[in-house]
């Protein structure tokens, strides 16, 4: 049983995704989805326990040996990411149980759970895949599922955003597939380990092919993860989707592209392959663009969810920045920020969701005086805002510490300046919301009653507490991610 854990991460949700539409009508679908996610979480945590010591779980699908068969691999990074992703998933799924039936027409609710599980399967697939083609297939799976959970609301703006996303996602898929074709052409392998062994030679023989391949794969995954200036699809998609979808899209889905790139750049495109290529520099430049422009655009938004979506562009920039520096501290910071931002942004989107659920309004100006009626939500939002700015004792601070230290390790104090400037900008768009929420006077108070159904409030509170816990006591993920970063960079 233990042997099959890696494949369980993908197969469980996939099976769930097919079973829910069949058996999951009339409310049972939500419970089925919950159970599936919980089991996946359990599997991921078990693997985290096994791999924390540095062991790597290898799984051969159908017992075919690697060069031909499909290989899955779970290392500490994979297990950690899968655990946190599943955790966020669990919280969002609980939250969605009350939110989604009100948002969608009743006939499509069980499809929503199915798509949600399909999305999880895709995400876990990318995290565990150890060959390029599977990476591609699972990327497509999660893109289609993500598109599904955007468009399922059947409203004009959702449809439009979904089509925009789908088309750009197809461009990305084309780039990735062509890149894979080129890789295969020069090496004859798709398994990452074999590629890593073959590629240095290939890079010497066919430098132009390898250059084109690296460029194509980078562009493809960067598009999927909304690296500036390829982020144009993100604000529409994330703000028009139902709130639980937004939480997952901003929290997890954009990270998956980055995880895939980190895998590729640390296992395959290492040393001699990219020594001649300016890809890291390119990434840093784009990341800086994303950090600054994301923040500037976020400042001009009036819609709460759009503001959060633009903030995601900034945060993705942080992660790419830490990644592009390619030193241990910065990479640790980037990996940590993947987790932290996943927790934070899903929490913030759920806060926004609860606010919309309760009041039916979504403009930032309507949040004035919210704390009178929804103190817990507002507290969590405040924690989230503080973490986004990077104030100590929140988890955002810990990742920012590593990122800034990483820029200095890399001898780039200017980049540290960029990070800090964008933190200041973050405070300029987050804090007025917080201040107005606590001290403002509501134009029209929401209907009286409790803050919201407990199944919507508690997931938010749980994630917010986790943000604080990871802020005060970050040693477990830090130690693991430090090891991972060292391993990935081959030191």
């Amino acid at each position, binding site marked *: 049983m233990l042997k099959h854990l890696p494949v369980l991460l993908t197969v469980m949700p996939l099976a769930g995704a097919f079973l829910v539409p069949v058996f999951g009508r009339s409310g049972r679908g939500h419970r089925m989805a919950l159970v599936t996610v919980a089991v996946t979480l359990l599997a991921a945590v078990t693997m985290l326990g096994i791999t924390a010591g540095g062991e790597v779980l290898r799984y051969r699908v159908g017992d075919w040996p690697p060069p031909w068969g499909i290989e899955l691999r779970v290392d500490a990074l994979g297990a950690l990411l899968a655990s946190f992703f599943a955790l966020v998933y669990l919280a969002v799924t609980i939250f969605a149980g009350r939110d989604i039936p009100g948002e969608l027409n009743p006939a499509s609710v069980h499809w929503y759970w199915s798509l949600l599980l399909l999305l999880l399967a895709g995400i876990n697939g990318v995290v565990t895949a150890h060959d390029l083609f599977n990476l591609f297939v699972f990327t497509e799976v999660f893109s289609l599922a993500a598109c599904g959970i955007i468009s399922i609301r059947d409203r004009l703006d959702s449809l439009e955003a979904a089509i925009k996303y789908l088309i750009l996602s197809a461009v990305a898929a084309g780039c990735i597939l062509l890149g894979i074709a080129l890789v295969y052409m020069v090496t004859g392998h798709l398994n990452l380990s074999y590629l890593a062994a073959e590629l240095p030679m290939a890079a010497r023989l066919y430098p132009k092919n390898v250059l084109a391949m690296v460029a194509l794969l980078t562009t493809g995954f960067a598009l999927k993860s909304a690296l500036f200036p390829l982020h144009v699809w993100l604000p529409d998609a994330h703000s028009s989707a139902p709130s639980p979808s937004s939480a997952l899209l901003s929290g997890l889905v954009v990270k998956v592209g980055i995880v895939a790139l980190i895998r590729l750049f640390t296992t395959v495109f290492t040393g001699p392959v990219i020594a001649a290529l300016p890809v890291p520099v390119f990434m840093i430049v784009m990341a800086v663009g994303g950090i600054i422009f994301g923040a500037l655009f976020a400042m001009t938004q009036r819609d709460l969810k759009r503001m959060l979506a633009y903030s995601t562009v900034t945060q993705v920039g942080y992660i790419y920045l830490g990644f592009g520096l390619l030193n241990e501290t910065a990479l640790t910071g980037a990996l940590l920020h993947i987790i932290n931002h996943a927790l934070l942004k899903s929490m913030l989107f759920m806060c926004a969701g609860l606010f919309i659920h309760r009041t039916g309004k979504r403009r930032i100006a309507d949040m004035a005086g919210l704390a009178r009626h929804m103190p817990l939500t507002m507290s969590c939002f405040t924690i989230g805002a503080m973490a986004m700015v990077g104030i*100590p004792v929140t988890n955002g601070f810990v990742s920012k510490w590593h990122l800034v230290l990483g820029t*200095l390790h890399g001898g780039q104090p200017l980049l540290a300046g960029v990070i*800090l400037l964008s933190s*200041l900008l973050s405070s300029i768009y987050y804090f007025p919301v917080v201040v107005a929420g*606590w001290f403002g006077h509501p134009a029209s108070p929401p209907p009286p009653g409790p803050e919201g159904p407990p199944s919507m409030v508690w997931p938010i509170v749980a994630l917010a507490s986790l943000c604080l816990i990871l802020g005060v*006591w*970050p040693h477990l993920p830090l130690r693991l991610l430090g090891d991972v970063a060292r391993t990935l960079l081959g030191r």
Partner: protein
Amino acid sequence: MQQAFEFPTAMPALIVLIPMVGAVLAYWVGLRWESVRNWLCVLVAGASLVLCLSMYPFIREGGVVVTRLPVLLPLGLSFRVDVLGYLLSSLTAAIWLLATFYSLDYMKGEHGVNRYYAFLTLTLSGALGTFMAGDLFTFFLFFELMSLPAAVLVIHEETREAVQAALKYLFMTIGGSLFFFFSLVATYQLSGSVALGTKGLITVATPLSFLTFAGFLISLGVKAGMVPLHMWLPDAHPVAPSPASALLSGIMIKTGAYGMLRVMYEVYGLEFLQRTGWNSVLLTLSVITILMGSAVAITQFDLKRRLAYSSIGQMGCILLGMSLMSERALTGDVFHFFADAVAKSCLFLCAGVILKRTGKRDIRQFAGIGHLLPVTMACFTVSALTLVGIPPLNGFVSKWQLSLGAFDAGMPAYALALLASSMLNAAYYLPIVLTAFFDRSVQKEAPAVGVALNPIVKKGAIGWQLGSIEASAIMLVPMVLLALSCAVFALSPQNWPLRLAEMAARLLMQ
């Protein structure tokens, strides 16, 4: 360099923890029993004071109280209380106790009292932690823990201008803290450690280490109200409730100067700064701060705004003292922390009484107010004279030492700046006092609008009596105690704050 004795105890952590827990407790208790909460907050501040003072036996022997908590946060927490930290944390706890006590009456009948007390107590935790921090990281943490809750105190009135002032305060504080954050990381990068008390973490002058210095200067300058980074201060301090203003001006802005002191003498070290001359940046800025702050104060007619600008001027003196780099200047400097904290808190508390009892903020309407509020105005006068630097009050002692220090440092010109400061202080404090006591021209007019609410003053409309609307005992006791301490310590032969300041200066100059 002699190694200080280290006493590992959990005392500093406990001192920080008590107000933190107290704040949360106060909030929950306050939802049901208001008076229990009020006295709980006083008790918490009192307990902090007692615990702070109880470290005296260690400090007297020249020791250092140390606590290390390595398991928390990326770098771990540590506390390290030496004589300087001891003096300032005791002072903080004492003034907090008095201000909280004062609030018992002042805040009666206000809105949002529960929030006020909780955040007041939480801020105490931050301020104490800042003064007792054993490394820059802990300093930063508590600096933030103090600065951000203080925004809630600023915004307390929830008026438009309060919200704007608070936002300005927040943005500048966060901007400043980002600079601090950069310097913190850079220090770690340059030296691999951020521990305080080592005399010279950074020893090589490189562009990065200068950037680091600039970052510290900017971030701590924002907090300390150093010109040109003072913009938030004159807006934020006046709009807060008066006891909170007293703490903001009396204690919280001192944390910026305190941080600068630690940075200059312990992160960079005396020798390093003498070699590179970077302290001249601060020297120049501090003179500008003194002159600007004091000059602008003269043009302000809102009492609390004038006091706020006066704070900027006094912070200039403190910054000047630390950048002169001589032992006597440092003695005066540390003593000026004490003198200004006591006097400025007292002034703000007096301003609170004036505002509460007469409804007046504009000093042009203060004529004859000294007869209505004799004790309050007496306290006001003593504190004002302290800041002017009239012998034999505290302010004189500190300015005297500072001036001597300027001569020691071979820069007598800076003594002139101090003299100018005193004269400007006189120019804006004495008119208030004189109007209050000796201007009888408008005494027979009907009282201002705000006063009409007060039944006692209604009677006063037909003929004002001495002390007719004097503050209650609860508000008077803190003011009188503070005013007394302006004089008592300077007059007594056992001037222990001065002794401690001397010890601290010696420690820093080592």
